[in-house]
């Protein structure tokens, strides 16, 4: 049984890929600023990092507005339901050809592990990166208002910590994008918006017909 779903709207795809590009750009320029690599001149890296940061802030404003107005924020409500099944699947079932324990629907685009991971990004990594980044950017103006125990060194450390968390997320995320029924299946869905629905053959996860596009 195969059911095509229009899973990702045009805005979602635009948001996802711009965010992906900007985050990769920010990681690359950010680690250039930190001196972790020298593939980019410091000044150029700072300029690009700042421009990419403001673009991402703008994108975020739109994305938050979109999530709230469309109700799509509900996709990130965490659940522990079937989470062990997910873990068992990635750790074992995926190698033996077991069926995916979770079926994507329009109401629940993300499996429980995705929900937790994305919520973690939105509630932990992003705020850490943004708050520390803004402090870093405006340190010259805000340092006088900051408590004495907070130095630029610590702000930089927190910002780098956020970057490392984001880098780790990115690695896992990119890899898991290839674990669909074909390596390109999820990626194709994120590009076209259409999910081919190969994972949707679990009887106890009925489709909701009323949500077809």
């Amino acid at each position, binding site marked *: 049984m195969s059911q095509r779903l229009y899973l990702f709207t045009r805005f979602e795809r635009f948001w996802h890929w711009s965010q992906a590009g900007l985050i990769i750009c920010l990681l690359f320029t950010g680690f250039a600023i930190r001196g972790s690599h020298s593939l980019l001149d410091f000044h150029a890296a700072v300029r690009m990092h700042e421009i990419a940061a403001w673009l991402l802030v703008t994108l975020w404003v739109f994305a938050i507005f979109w999530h709230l107005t469309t109700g799509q924020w509900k996709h990130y409500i965490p659940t522990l339901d079937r989470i062990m099944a997910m873990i068992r699947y990635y750790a074992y079932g995926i190698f033996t050809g077991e069926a995916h324990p979770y079926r994507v629907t329009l109401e629940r685009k993300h499996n429980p592990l995705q929900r937790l991971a994305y919520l973690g990004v939105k509630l932990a990594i992003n705020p850490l990166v943004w708050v520390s980044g803004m402090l870093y950017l405006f340190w*010259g103006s805000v340092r006088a208002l900051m408590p004495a125990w907070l130095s630029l060194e610590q702000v930089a450390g927190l910002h780098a910590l956020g970057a490392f968390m984001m880098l780790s997320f990115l690695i896992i995320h990119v890899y898991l994008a290839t674990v669909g029924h074909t390596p390109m299946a999820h990626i194709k869905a994120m590009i076209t918006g259409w999910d081919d629905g190969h994972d949707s053959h679990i009887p106890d996860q009925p489709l909701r017909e009323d949500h077809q596009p």
Partner: protein
Amino acid sequence: MTVAQRCSVGLLLWIWLSNALAATADHTQFDALQGSFTSAQEVTQACLSCHTEAAQQVMATRHWTWEYENPHDGEQLGKKTMLNTFCIADRSNEGFCQSCHVGYGWEDQQFDFTNEANVDCLACHNSGDYVKGWAGYPVEGTNLTTVAQAVGETTRASCGSCHFYGGGGDGVKHGDLDSSLVDPHRGLDVHMASDGLNFKCSTCHQSDDHNIAGSRIQGTAVDNQEAMLRGHHDENRNAATCQSCHGQSPHETGADAQRLNDHTRTLACQTCHIPAFARGGVPTKMEWDWSTAGQLDENGEPFEITDDNGHIIYMSKKGDFVLEENVVPEYVWWNGDTSFVTADDTINPNERVMVNTYHGEPGADDARIWPVKRSLGRQPYDTVHNTLLQPQIAIPGNDTSFWYNFDWDKALQAGTEYAEQPFSGEYDFVDTAMLWPITHMVAPSEDALDCASCHRDQGRLESIEGVWMPGRDRHVLLDRFGFGVAGLMLVGVFGHGAMRFFNRNRQKGH
């Protein structure tokens, strides 16, 4: 007449006209300046017949007293008593050294500091053809009437006739002051460029009552204020700082303006805007080793050695030199306060003696990172008293001056006796060093340092503490942890992917 000749005549005419028209008084017409002067002091008295307060004003300044009391610790300083790593000491050498004193006749301790006629107005207010010699008197052959009638405002050349030649030669001492600044191009000094803004020294070093703003002994390292209107009188403010014209937020255009302005809390303007010193083609003396002085050739005569560029690198009179051009400064935190080792201070001869020390706590609000020239020396010290010694060097015709006898024992005996410094008779040479603030030769903005000059490993500010610098500083443990975790993730996903690959047949068979 060729085109070039016509141009130069035109230029001269223009310079003469602009000078003549700029002033409302033509000194060539003044009765007081017509007479034939029999002594330089008579010129001064002629000046004072109109400028009645000038001598008293000058006599109240360091240009006259060569004395300075450090307000921080009461240390008695000033050229008269200070030691340095170049000519070492003024005392007992006054007749020679005081050719750069704004007075006539200071050749020993008998000099009358209260005689107004001893003030040398022409030292600063000449417009050429005036050269000071022994004890500050004009050199023989000077036509005093001509010079007196040619008085005018100070110029780069008139100030430079002393300040460019400190340490015994062109550019020797400071590194950012040499004769290339008489007629500098824009790239050498954006303010003084003769084809540009054409600032004189006094444009920044404004004076009030002949008291000239600016001092290296007590520097204004931080001037965290808005620009002030020229002509505005504020006794508590140094008019010679960059900020007195540019303010504390000088970067106005470009995407980086705010970020650069934020740097003014940490950096002196000079740090970025003077990328190197001794840029005008005149080398500066970075090292001076007195201990090798006194070697004579086979005829028993003193000699000199020059390098490939014709610059002297050894003199029997002075020892060995290291000269450098286009020197990248060192950088230090400085709050403007400087203390000096004087002849009274005990030194530790087992390590290099810092003849001066720049004070300033890294990262403090009252200090900035400043560019400095570090000049190294090797000079005589008393091995019993552990003090730096003051030799008599330069007085011609006597039996004790080093330059005319090449005998350290006599030179040190005479110098210390004159200076009333205890001397055991035992001496050796000790390594010394001294810092000089770099503040002239400000480059055009396009030549200012770029970010990566400092924001990288082994950058210019590599050893500067008290400031977090992206590109130079990183948390080593955090980076190890962060990249370690990311690496583990990579290994994990590759392993997972490989297992999927090798088990792909089982999946298909399902």
